[in-house]
Every structure is written in C-alpha cells, then in structure tokens.
C-alpha cells in the first residue's frame, strides 16, 4: 500500500532523511520510532507530497512526485502541529475539509460522534483544549473513510488522561483493510498501536522489528514505582538487589529500574521474597 524507496531529504547541507526504504502492506500498523529530529515527520511530509525529495514514494497506485493529489485522496492525516484556522468553528472546519475531500455531508455528524466532538460543533477551533483539537484532527483525518491513516505524534502535547483516551480511540480505528502509519517516541503507544516498528536515528533506519521487541532490542530501561502491602522498603529493595535488579526505597514505595520488556520479573521477585505488591506505576 505504501512503498518508500531510497528516500533522501536534504535541507541545504543537512540530510534530514538518508536513503530510507520502507514498505507497508494493507492492514498493517507500522510505527516510525525515534527521538525528536530523527526524520520521522519529514518522511510523513514527503509521503503527503508536501516536501520535495530524492527517491520514490508510491501510495496505492500513485507516485507522490507526480500524482500527490490522487495519493492524498487515499490518506487521512493527523499532523504533529495542529494548525487550523482558529476563527472557524468546528462545524465550519469539518465542512471545509469535507468539501476538499468531496465527502458526503450526511456522514459528518457520524464522524464527529466517533471522536466525541458532537457537543462542540459551534465552538471556534481556537477556543478548544489541546485534547479536543487532537480529536478534531482525528475527525478530519477520518473523513471519507481513508485507506491510510498517517498519525504524526498523535498524542504529543496531551496530558495523561487525554493521551490515554486518544490512544484508545486510535486503537479502535485499526482494521484489516486500513493502513496505520504513526510516528512516536512513546514506547507504550507504539506497543499498543503498531505491529511493526521502524526505528530512526539521525535520518537513517537503524532497526526494524516487532513492536513488542523494541524495548529489548534497543536496551531501553523502565522505571517502576511499586507499592507493597507490608514490610520494610529497605528490605524490599535489598531483596530486588539480590536478584540483580536495581531498586531504591522511594516515599511510599520502591523505585525499580528494569528492562522495559521484563517488568514482571521485578514484581514476581518481590512477591517471592514476601513483599506482596499492592500497586505499581510505570514512570518511564
């Protein structure tokens, strides 16, 4: 459905994307993962035909260098930076987008209901909260039921509650006929939404793997804050240290540093040592 071959994007002497090749099949959910400035957003912009580039990008049957408009008919896009026309209301914004996409107006309310915006249709876009703007961006991307959803950092700048609800919403949008291509630097988000991960660093692809393997392949560590039912926090930390797991007493719990794919081992070690776990939070 999406074929990127030898994509290179330069800004003067700076190479933002360096000879990247990626293929995404119909029904697949792929995450472009990497730190800020790794080149993920540039790939999305090239895919949309918004930036000139070297190499070939095909979306469906269309080469985006020559048929960007036709290619965009297959795509719904959620941008990283939400730049709407702030004076327009939600209704007017959706109507404008629907006219450009030639979408039947009768389906608009259904789309707004899907993302939970039906109660905000008369509000100017500029007055919406970050979470509601993100929902509006998703609603616009869904207009016309596109075969491909491009989600560029779909939860950036959101608080934890909004982020959870957006991730749930996006998870529900997955379907066997739809391609999901998202960029993110949140490991949990990638694990929940993607089947496969393409990891970027300095504009180059450094790793391709299943989304569940990413943390381990990259040697990423997680921080767990664990609350135990009884016993000394010092003793609980010592018990974990004896298993080779780094841990320290911290306020009402134990702070544990562990491989992001092996969080359960730390919890089981505490249980086995006689410190029943009441609750835990993943801090990173």
């Amino acid at each position, binding site marked *: 459905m999406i074929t990127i071959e030898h994509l290179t994007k330069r800004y003067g002497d700076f190479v933002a994307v360096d000879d990247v090749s990626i293929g995404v099949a119909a029904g697949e959910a792929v995450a472009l993962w990497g730190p800020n400035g790794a080149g993920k957003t540039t790939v999305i912009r090239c895919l949309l*035909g918004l930036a*000139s580039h070297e190499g070939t990008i095909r979306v469906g049957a269309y080469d985006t260098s020559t048929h960007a408009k036709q290619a*965009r008919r297959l795509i719904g896009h959620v941008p990283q*930076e939400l*730049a709407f026309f702030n004076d*327009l209301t939600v209704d007017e914004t959706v109507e*404008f987008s629907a*006219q*450009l996409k030639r979408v039947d107006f009768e389906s608009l309310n259904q789309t707004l209901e899907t993302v939970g915006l039906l109660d905000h249709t008369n509000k100017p876009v500029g007055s919406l909260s970050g979470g509601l703007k993100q929902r509006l961006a998703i609603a616009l991307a869904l207009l016309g039921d596109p075969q491909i959803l491009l989600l560029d950092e779909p939860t950036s700048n959101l608080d934890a509650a909004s982020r959870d609800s957006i991730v749930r919403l996006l998870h529900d949008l997955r379907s066997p006929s739809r391609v999901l291509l998202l960029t993110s630097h949140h490991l949990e988000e990638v694990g929940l939404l993607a089947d496969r991960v393409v990891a970027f660093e300095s504009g180059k692809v450094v790793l391709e793997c299943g989304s569940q393997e990413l943390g381990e392949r990259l040697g990423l560590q997680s921080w767990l804050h664990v609350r135990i039912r009884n016993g000394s926090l010092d003793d609980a930390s010592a018990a974990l240290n004896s298993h080779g797991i780094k841990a320290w007493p911290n306020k009402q719990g134990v702070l544990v540093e562990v491989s992001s794919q092996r969080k359960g081992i730390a919890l089981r070690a505490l249980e086995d040592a006689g410190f029943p776990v009441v609750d835990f939070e993943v801090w990173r």
Partner: protein
Amino acid sequence: MTVEMDLVLTVARRELRDTIRSKLLWIYAACFAILSAVLTLTGLSGAQLAGSGGYGRTAASLVALVQTLVPLMGLTLGALTVAGARERGALRFVLAHPVSRTEVLGGTFLGLATALCGSVAAGFGLEGVIGAISGAPGSPSSLLILSGLSALLATSMLAVGMAIGAGSTRSSAALGLSILAWLLLVFVGDLGIMGTALATRMPVSVLFFSVASNPVEAFRIAAVPTFGSSLDVLGPAGSYAVDSLGSASGLLAAAVMTVWIVVPALIGLRRFLRSDA
C-alpha cells in the same frame, strides 16, 4: 493536471471569510474610506469657489491617494497571507488534503482579490454617496471607471505581493520585501526614470513606455482622462501619449496592469510549486 474549479472556490470562500475578519483589511479599508471622504469634502469647498475645476482637483487627489494606498494594501496583504499561512502551518493543513497547489494558490488569490476590491469599492461608494448628497460636480460613471481601475491596480499589486509571499518562509521577510516593492513602484521607480531620462537624454517615446510599464503609473495614465483632464498634465511623456496614442493610451495602461496581474501570478505559482509546505 486539471484544475478543479469547485476546489478553487472552496479555498476562495474560506480565504474571503478569513480576510473579511482580518484587522489589517479593516484598517486599510477605514484609512482609504476616511481619506477619500476627507478629499471629497475638501474638494467640495474648493468647487464652490472654483466650479468644476474644484472637482478636477478632488479627482486628482483621489488618484494620488489610490496610487499610494492601494499598492500598499495589495502588496502587504498578498505577501503576509501566503507567508503567514506557511509560518503558522495552516498551509500544510490545507495542502495535506486532496487539492493541488495550483488550486490552493488560485483560491487564495481569488478570495483575497474579492476582499481587497470590495474594500476599495466600499471607499469609492462612500465617496459617491457624499458627492451625491452634497451635489458635487462630476459624473457617477467617471467614479465607477476610477473604481474599476483602482480594483485593477489592487489586483496587480496583490499578485506581486503573493509572488513575494509564495517563496517566503517568514512573514516578517515577506512584509519587508513587500514594503520594499511598494517603495520601488510608488516612489523610487518614478524618480529613477526621471533621473535616467535627464542624464541620458532619453527619447520621449522611451520615456513614456518606461513610465507606463510601471503599473502604478499605468493606473495614473488610465485614470487622469476619466475626470476630463488631458494627459498633458503628466509632462512630456503625457504629451507624447496624447499626440501618438490618443485614447488608446488608456487601453494600453489597462493592458499593462493586466500583464502585472498575469506575470507575477505565474511567477508566484512557480515559486509556490517549488517550495516545501
């Protein structure tokens, strides 16, 4: 690739709505309306003393006002709209839809031109109402022609402004360049030609065509005869136009302004197609 007119009109409607809500347009429109009303009222008191000659002076002042203010309106509005939309990310939002760059730029131009010409027409309308109430000499048709020529000048300056904005990534740079273009077209160009003519003993025909190639001067050449004056008032170049071209000088001037719409629009489109959103 074919241009789909309904998409152009969709972009134009949104641009028109956005521009009508913009403070910049209202400030310009208010300045134009107030200054033209003041000129009319001042001219009326002169007309009571000098008869229809007073109206001639009012019309000449109006031409000078249009020559100064309308290019500034068109140039800055055109440059700021496109560069500002790129800077805010709004351009990327629109271009991520299944719409071509030609349709987006064409729609933006259409929406802006409608708003700009509307504000110029409103200024002339106010002036016409004041003139009608106070029984000023002069015909409504000459005011209509002057209004139409002003709209043509406004549209050509808008095209130049958009050509500047189409390749700019920062609205501050686009604003600076548009003000530079305004200074060149309104003040420096005329002085430069006069200086060159004096220094090189330029033939009067070359002098006329050099002057007439500037859209701001072309407007003056087309506008002066509309209120009954002769182009002789413009000096040797004007006398050459009267002797050699007669009434065709007005058509030539209108054609020059039209060329100043088409050529900058094509340059702007080329820059827009080549730039990243």
